């Protein structure tokens, strides 16, 4: 007995010790989140190890978070107290992080190293009177020059885009003097800046991509395209292959390209050139990578110390040499090892000529309209002005002032009254002995359905109610305020503009309906034809064909969608390869509504026909053979048998499949989002992808997106009821 007590005491003591030890350790741990990979991650880890060595008893826990989900994870984790003490991110997110109160002032940390930091970087982290985050590195665009091609072109001057363009004649037709992501506003802005314009006015906080600099910049790039100075339809990913295969004399890209190039080609990096001979130099946007101090930190002092250390010369040296970062710490650049690094030095010079990316909240809203305007203008030079105007309108649309906040009192009152009425009625009924007896009798029945009711309530009813409730709120970046039906009013009145202008609810609804009808027509006709062929008893290898034809259905739809997007790629896609082998000019599939829409429909038909085929095979098997024989004896030709027996008898099975298919197609997000992505200019968006854009690419206007979702729900309910009515009517009223 005594032994037992002694053991228990020992156990308690041990537990107390463990808890204390954990507590002590927790005070000496600092948690860091970062989005780095590869060399950058390696350098960062080295720096953190050095910090640990310099601070005995301190341990640094790191977490590399994939870039896609980075912001969302931070925003979720920090307020709940399980986020990092310090994290690395780009400076543009300062306003958003401030709004969510997940970062704190870094003035103390900056005070330790401030004088050594690039002024442009310090400017970037300034918000109001305080500075948020310690600047670590700068990122911007520079010009990569392929030495071999440059020499082959007779070493032309790289002083301006115009002089680079003149190398066209000296290069083979398959190579281009310049390759860059021309249709992207981030790249295009460097040209706009050189021509005296800008994408966004940080002082006034407004969209600024219009006026003569915008037109001039677009006309200039149109000229480059027309003269085959730059290749058509290059996106971010296709720049690398151009450069690696020696088909690009120069490339405009960022430091990330260095890692992708490897040692295959001899190149150098220089600052971006002028646009016109004798004009101003191109000025790229500069993004500053910042170590942010998280609010709610468990070890704020350590975090502060670590932030300062990261910007210290010792750490900066490692980040620059190992991680290939253009560090914001000035003193290390005078060290010979860095001073002689031509690539890093070029990027640093480029950054010094660049322009800090504005941190204004509306800046992020400018990208989508600007991108669309640029794409449209490059596709169709005659529509340059229209494209620019459209861009401005889209921006205004997305940044329009939020509807006035309203008191939720009327709604609460109405809901309260309804609840009261229901309660009164329930009490009234509960007093009725008959009703009570009925309830008692059906108790066992309730037991049987309870689990289903709970599951449906949780998975269907609750999200629906929450979505509908959200639609009564408005706000950006998740800060929602009650506005009553204002979102609906905005949507239904097309935000005051023309009802069928591009991007309005009605225009998108029209596209959605067209999309649904076109798909269903193809799904059903192809499905039925294949089912008929596969149902022929004489066909050999029937089972094999059936399995093969069901495969498109079995493959996850996003995989199929991505595959088809590749097939429709202008340069590398199979579709254009087939066309050109037939002597047809390659088509820019996503440049016009008709071809982009067709590409979407083809993809979704590929995905959709197997379902209709399987349903039809089943329905065909259920038609008695006798009927065909009777019809044959009655004198029906094979076509008449199909027309008078097969089709009418397929209908009862096909109609539910069609209405189900209609709902699926109406909400087919994957294909639209992944294949055309709404191109050109959002013309192929359908309602559900449009709702997605409002929720996730236009400053998280969840309320507005929810209103869209509720309207989609309404349209679908109406649509299916209508279809039901029609089909019941057609069946001759027989039940």
């Amino acid at each position, binding site marked *: 007995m005594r032994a037992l007590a002694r053991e228990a005491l020992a156990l308690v003591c041990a537990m107390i010790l463990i808890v204390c030890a954990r507590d002590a350790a927790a005070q000496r741990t600092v948690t860091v989140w970062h989005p780095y990979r590869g060399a950058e991650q390696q350098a960062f880890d080295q720096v953190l190890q050095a910090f640990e060595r310099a601070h005995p008893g301190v341990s640094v826990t790191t977490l590399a978070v994939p870039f896609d989900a980075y912001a969302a994870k931070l925003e979720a984790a920090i307020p709940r107290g399980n986020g990092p003490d310090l994290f690395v991110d780009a400076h543009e997110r300062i306003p958003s992080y401030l709004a969510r109160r997940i970062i704190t002032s870094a003035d103390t940390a900056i005070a330790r190293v401030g004088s050594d930091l690039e002024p442009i970087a310090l400017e970037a982290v300034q918000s109001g009177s305080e500075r948020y985050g310690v600047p670590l590195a700068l990122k911007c665009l520079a010009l990569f020059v392929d030495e071999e091609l440059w020499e082959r072109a007779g070493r032309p001057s790289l002083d301006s885009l115009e002089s680079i363009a003149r190398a066209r004649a000296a290069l083979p037709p398959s190579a281009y003097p310049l390759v860059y992501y021309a249709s992207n506003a981030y790249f295009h802005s460097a040209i706009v800046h050189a021509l005296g314009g800008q994408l966004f006015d940080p002082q006034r906080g407004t969209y600024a991509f219009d006026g003569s600099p915008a037109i001039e910049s677009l006309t200039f790039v149109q000229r480059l395209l027309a003269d085959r100075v730059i290749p058509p339809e290059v996106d971010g990913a296709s720049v690398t292959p151009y450069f690696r295969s020696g088909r690009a004399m120069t490339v405009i890209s960022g430091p990330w390209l260095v890692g992708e190039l490897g040692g295959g080609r001899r190149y150098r990096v220089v600052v971006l050139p002028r646009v016109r001979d004798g004009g101003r130099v191109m000025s790229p946007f500069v993004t500053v990578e910042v170590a942010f101090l998280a609010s709610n930190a468990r070890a704020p002092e350590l975090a502060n110390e670590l932030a300062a250390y990261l910007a210290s010369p010792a750490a900066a040296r490692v980040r620059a040499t190992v991680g290939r970062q253009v560090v914001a710490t000035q003193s290390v650049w005078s060290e010979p090892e860095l001073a002689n690094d031509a690539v890093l030095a070029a990027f640093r010079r480029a950054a010094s000529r660049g322009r800090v990316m504005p941190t204004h909240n509306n800046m992020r809203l400018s990208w989508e309209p600007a991108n669309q305007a640029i794409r449209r203008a490059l596709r169709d030079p005659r529509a340059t002005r229209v494209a620019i105007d459209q861009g401005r309108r889209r921006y205004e649309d997305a940044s329009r002032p939020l509807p006035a906040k309203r008191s939720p009192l009327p709604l609460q009152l109405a809901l309260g009254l309804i609840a009261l009425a229901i309660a009164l009625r329930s009490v009234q009924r509960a007093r009725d002995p008959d009703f009570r007896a009925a309830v008692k009798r059906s108790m066992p029945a309730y037991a049987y359905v309870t689990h289903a009711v709970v599951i449906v309530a949780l998975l269907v009813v609750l999200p629906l109610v929450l979505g509908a409730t959200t639609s009564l709120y408005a706000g950006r970046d998740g800060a929602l305020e009650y506005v009553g039906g204002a979102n609906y009013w905005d949507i239904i009145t097309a935000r005051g503009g023309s009802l069928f202008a591009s991007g309005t609810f009605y225009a998108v609804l029209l596209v959605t309906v067209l999309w649904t009808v076109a798909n269903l027509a193809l799904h059903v006709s192809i499905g039925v034809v294949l089912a008929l062929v596969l149902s022929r008893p004489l066909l050999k290898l029937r089972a094999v064909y059936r399995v093969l034809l069901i495969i498109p259905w079995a493959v996850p739809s996003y995989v199929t969608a991505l595959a088809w997007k590749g097939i429709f790629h202008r340069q590398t896609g199979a579709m254009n390869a087939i066309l050109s082998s037939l002597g047809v000019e390659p088509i820019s599939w996503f440049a016009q509504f008709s071809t982009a829409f067709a590409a979407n429909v083809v993809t979704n038909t590929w995905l959709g026909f197997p379902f209709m085929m399987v349903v039809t095979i089943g329905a065909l098997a259920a038609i*008695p053979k*006798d*009927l065909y*024989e*009777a*019809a*044959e*004896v*009655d*004198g*029906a*030709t094979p076509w*008449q048998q199909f027309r*008078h*027996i097969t089709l*009418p*008898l397929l*209908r009862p099975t096909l109609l539910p499949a069609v209405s189900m298919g209609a709902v699926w197609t109406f909400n087919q997000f994957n294909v639209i989002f992944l294949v055309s992505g709404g191109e050109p200019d959002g013309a192929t968006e359908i309602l559900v992808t449009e709702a997605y854009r409002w929720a996730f690419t236009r400053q998280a206007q969840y309320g507005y997106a929810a209103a869209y979702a509720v309207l989609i729900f309404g349209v679908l309910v109406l649509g299916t009821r209508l279809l039901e009515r029609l089909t019941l009517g057609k069946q*001759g009223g*027989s039940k």
Partner: protein
Amino acid sequence: MATLSLRTIRKVLGANAILKGIDLDVQSGEFVVLVGPSGCGKSTLLRTIAGLETPDEGSIKLDDRDVTRAEPRERDIAMVFQSYALYPHLTVRDNLAFGLRLRGESEATVKSRVEEVSQMLGLGALLDRLPKDMSGGQRQRVAMGRAIARRPKLFLFDEPLSNLDAALRNQVRVEIKKLHASLGATMIYVTHDQVEAMTLADQLVVLNSGKVEQKGPPLEVYARPASRFVAGFLGSPSMNFTDAVVSDDSTSAVAEGLRAPIDRQRFGAIERGRKVVVGIRPHDVTVRKGESSAHGYRDGATPTEITVAVDVVEAMGFEAYAHGPVGGAPFVARVEGAADALPRRGDRLALSVEPAHVHLFDPETGRSLAGAP
């Protein structure tokens, strides 16, 4: 109205020979019933006539036109299916009109024919119903109506009554008989039911494993079965068969408990000692009361023609079937009488039979030993 002639029709499905050379002539206006057990090929023969199956060999002539390879729609034949095969999505009216419309008849013709047929079959009240809203008998009538409306050359019926209950079957059977009389059409009717076969047929064709066993007017086939198969197939309960030996004086066939007189006129002189199969229908025996035991049946001293030791009695009310062994084979005798006068298990029944009702068959071939009638 048409004539049909089949010559050496053969059909093989997979490894099975279904039809093994069928010859058949159907006169205009005749009602021919194809009867036989399941799997005898009667349905396949009918489908071959309809054109739903193509024979591997042989020829089919309809009104002297060779239609062996013709499509069903080119033959002008109507068929009533066992399942009725009504078009489920069409009303009775449209079902009746279906074949007419396919043949491009004018709407006026269609209307009058539908009218006519619905009157003939009493379908007037059902015209706007769908098949699923009707009873089996009603559907059956619609199926017949659909055939009649077209006024085809030849009607084919594929076991049209087998999905009906017994009472309805009797009623519709009579209707079909009347219909044939009033239309005077050529009809071929397939059934496995001997009552239908006997009552409906002008000509009965008994099929057995792909061959015609016997054809002729039903009563003749019944009275003079050409083979043990036909004899056993027609009649209920079925004919009794007993292995026997022809007596020394060739006047009777003898087995244990059996001495069956032989009709010399029908069978001629049969050598004595020959092994035969004696066939006697249960209805063709009479009880020799004085010689039967118990319940007024006395065990007599004089030899009777048939002696049955009764082991089972099936009482039907107005008659009874007494079962017992004769010559080592089961034997059934029909006995008339009131319930309390019926034989019981353990009784010995003395029966006699008219020479005309004794059938003799070859034990090897099963063919009747009777000469040509």
